[in-house]
């Protein structure tokens, strides 16, 4: 006890000294000379904050909070019981209803953020197939998003094709791009795969950046048409009215529709034979092959179907911005989507949705911090991975089909 106490505080001290050593070169070395004031000021604040945390931890170890914890766990226990008692379809229905009435509860800004979240839900769920189910690390995933976006942009500008017509084409082209990257990487694993996919993402971005005749390079493409929607109008008989999606809340419904389709499709894939085979490949590729899984085809399929959803999301993105440029498809975006999948819980659909929500909506909340946003973000990610290494909502792996066998 005493020994551990000492160990903790010694580590605390060493940690603080280290922090100073790291901070000073960042803050104290200036063109006009060396300077310690700012470093000490910031370091002092951090040290006080850390000290507070240490004291809380110390009190916790000594059992000061035990009473409160017991009450807390009783509350979570009873809510969990209540949650289990509600049938799942009812929960889904409530969620759907909330999603449907959401635009009337918020303003333009809220709609904007919601559209973003839903785009990333699609992206996250698509990447989840590749990373979470099939276990293939893909660091260039955003390339398929780019392919989808440019497909719709070009079809809309040059051929005046409507959004809904272009959507399947964007999906198809993204799937083909998925196969193109999938094919050469089929024999690779782990680190090599990461590097090749990373390279592929950059290649696509560079093509978009440099193929002036087709993509207009870094200037991007503008003049993309909005999606059109047919609406059953009943004011003067039953007529189909066509109108353009103009307001952000209308865009919200379009992407909500795409996201729900994506969720259903991914759910179906997840629990199909194909999903099971992907999981077997993730667990042990050779063993899967020995059990009669065509790993070649299924890995290609994983890349292709993951890419399809990115293609859809990309087409929507282009229609909403009405402008695309290569800047939107950088590695940082790929990393972001990957972070959502990992943070939410690999292979878990609700997890990925939560991950997208957390990584898109929360930074909006933190907008005040502005400069330190990415710092806070990184800190939260690190803490999350320490506290919940399997993600916010880990995939339930206690077999569904196994239950049915009994």
């Amino acid at each position: 006890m005493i020994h551990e106490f000492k160990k903790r505080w010694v580590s605390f001290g060493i940690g603080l000294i280290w922090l100073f050593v790291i901070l000073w070169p960042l803050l104290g070395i200036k063109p006009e000379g060396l300077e310690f004031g700012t470093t000490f000021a910031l370091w002092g604040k951090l040290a006080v904050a850390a000290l507070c945390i240490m004291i809380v931890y110390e009190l916790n170890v000594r059992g000061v909070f035990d009473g409160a914890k017991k009450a807390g766990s009783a509350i979570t226990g009873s809510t969990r019981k209540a949650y289990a008692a509600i049938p799942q379809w009812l929960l889904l229905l409530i969620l759907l209803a909330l999603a449907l009435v959401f635009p009337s509860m918020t303003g333009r800004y809220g709609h904007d953020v919601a559209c973003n979240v839903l785009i990333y839900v699609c992206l996250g769920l698509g990447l989840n197939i590749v990373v979470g189910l099939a276990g293939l690390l893909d660091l260039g995933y955003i390339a398929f998003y780019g392919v989808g976006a440019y497909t719709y942009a070009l079809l809309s500008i040059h051929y005046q094709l409507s959004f809904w017509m272009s959507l399947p084409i964007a999906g198809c082209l993204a799937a083909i791009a998925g196969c193109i990257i999938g094919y050469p990487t089929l024999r690779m694993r782990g680190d090599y795969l990461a590097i090749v996919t990373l390279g592929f993402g950059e290649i696509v971005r560079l093509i978009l950046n440099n193929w002036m005749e087709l993509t207009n390079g870094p200037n991007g493409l503008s003049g993309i048409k909005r999606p059109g929607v047919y609406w059953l109008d009943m004011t003067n008989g039953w007529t189909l009215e066509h109108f353009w999606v103009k307001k952000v809340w209308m865009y919200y419904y379009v992407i909500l529709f795409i996201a729900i389709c994506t969720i259903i499709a991914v759910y179906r894939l997840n629990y199909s034979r194909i999903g099971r085979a992907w999981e077997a490949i993730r667990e042990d590729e050779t063993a899967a092959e020995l059990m009669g899984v065509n790993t070649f085809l299924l890995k290609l399929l994983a890349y292709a179907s993951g890419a399809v959803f990115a293609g859809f999301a990309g087409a929507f993105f282009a229609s909403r911005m009405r402008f695309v440029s290569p800047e939107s498809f950088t590695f940082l975006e790929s990393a972001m989507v990957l972070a959502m999948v990992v943070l939410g819980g690999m292979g878990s659909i609700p997890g990925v949705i939560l991950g997208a929500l957390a990584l898109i909506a929360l930074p909006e909340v933190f907008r005040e911090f502005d400069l330190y946003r990415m710092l806070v973000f990184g800190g939260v990610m690190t803490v999350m991975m320490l506290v919940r290494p399997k993600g916010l909502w880990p995939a339930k792996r206690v077999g569904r089909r196994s239950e049915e066998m009994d």
Partner: protein
Amino acid sequence: MSESKEVILELRDVTSAYGNIEALKGISLKVHKGEIVSIIGANGAGKSTTLMTICNIVPTVKGDIFYQGERINALGSEVLPTMGLCQVPEGRRIFPRLTVTENLEMGAFFRKDQAGIKDDMERAFEFFPKLRERRRQLGGTLSGGEQQMLAIGRAIMSRPKVLLLDEPSMGLAPLIVQQIFKIIEEINSQGVTVLLVEQNANLALQASHRGYVLETGSVVMEDDASALLSNSDIRKAYLGE
């Protein structure tokens, strides 16, 4: 075993390599229908490579592999289980984050007959009652012995005609090893031909009809199991005498 018996699996002068390194240097062996044949040899002799070459995970460089009279060199690994040739690989290689039942279901992945799969699941649970108790547990949380049972159970879910077993005794307590060998003999008595790879030569030969001795990628001896067991060279080299 008599020569009149039907040959179900045959390797003729098979060479295979990892890159430039030749691991099998022209191996020939025959397995008759209904037999248990064991391949014994020291660590690194090429036993696992032999099984992986049969399953075309390691490609054949030269020579022919025949299964039920058909040349299978060029067939994809994933086709072989559908033909009744199934391997339990070295180190078990179960799917750690799938449940026991899901692991077993993966063994029947290519099959579509739900009723038959259910029967075979029952049969696997009868062979290994431990697995029934643990059917909802993740494969990775099983003990070594249970994982070996799961790996064998998974393989018999494919209704194999020939079962390739790579070191089923590896890292297991003697009592469990005996249990597993008893079940291998039982599976064999139900009509499944077994090609068994083992470092534990004594145990393997006692369970087998015939045996091959492998040394650095070549077959150096083949005989009836009882003859190999009483051979003084073999006893010195592999049975620790």
